[in-house]
């Protein structure tokens, strides 16, 4: 249920920028694996009259050694849970499938990103 904390951050961000928000667009990165239903219901409870667009963003990890992109490989259940809490924990469990390097960058699809806030 730490989706609540993420939703609270979104609400805090939106209220800092618009007194009467009408519509927000939010990207959910694959890496953090946010439970969309819980996240959305938390947002709705705190901002019931705001239209919320959620889009999933695929995770891309880029190896800093061989410069190749890699998709998020299957993590074990326990590791997935830890990465869900802290996306950067992926650095403890993943290495480049091509060169074996542990030195990579999360290029896309990390966590919660706000694309736009519409309203006044």
């Amino acid at each position, binding site marked *: 249920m730490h989706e609540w904390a993420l939703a609270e951050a979104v609400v805090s961000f939106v209220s800092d920028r618009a007194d009467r928000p009408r519509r927000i667009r939010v990207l959910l990165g694959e890496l953090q694996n946010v439970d969309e239903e819980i996240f959305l219901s938390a947002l709705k409870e705190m901002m019931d009259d705001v239209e919320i667009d959620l889009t999933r963003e695929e995770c891309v990890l880029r190896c800093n050694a061989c410069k190749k992109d890699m998709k998020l490989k299957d993590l074990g259940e326990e590791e997935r849970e830890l990465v869900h809490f802290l996306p950067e924990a992926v*650095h403890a469990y993943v290495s480049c499938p091509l060169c074996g390097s542990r030195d990579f960058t999360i290029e896309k699809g990390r966590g919660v990103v706000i694309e736009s806030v519409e309203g006044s």
Partner: protein
Amino acid sequence: MAERNDPRESIIDRRLDGIKKLAVVSAKGGVGKSTVSAILALLLAEKAKVGVLDLDAYNPSIPTILGMRELRVGEDRGITPQSFRGMQVLSFAHFSGDRAMPLRGRELSDAVKELLAVTTWDADLLIIDTPPGTGEVTLDLLRFFRDARFLVVTTPSALAKMALDRELELLGRSRVIGVLENMSERDCDLCVRYSKEIEMACGDTDRLMSLADGMRNMAEEIWRRL
């Protein structure tokens, strides 16, 4: 608004509103920051609700020093730190275990922001253990918490003195509540033995606590200054 925005930064100061923050820092490694953090936490937990946040991603050692055998975090509208000996404890080790977590600068800052944004503390005082240096973690603490106070740990060595001067120059006098000179025991056999005993007690909470009794006055003084 077309650009991609990070919502976490807007909630960090609210998340820790009303909680006193003490960051234990040093520009030089190996001066005893984590041991000092752990002992201070144990002592101050007798008079206040204490949270301990271990922000050393590369070598998180607070759980080891405190003797926490099994690491687990909870979830309740946020990450809830682990309860231990009346304190709340959260460390990067809760997520990386005993594996290396090699992070470059921006991602280290991202990891710090995540923990600050989603962790819910029930504490009067948060003691923050930091990695050595004046990099991302110190800069993020300075950026997010105008009310954070810094305890700078150093040793009598000339190299540590240079590092201390740099650290103080960065932090500014108003935010530093004290400089703790650690490992000053070279000329005193009794102190050398005491220091060795503390080192040996890491991981044994009861033993650490009994040895920490000698630091009670220091902890009281720090609490008074916060």
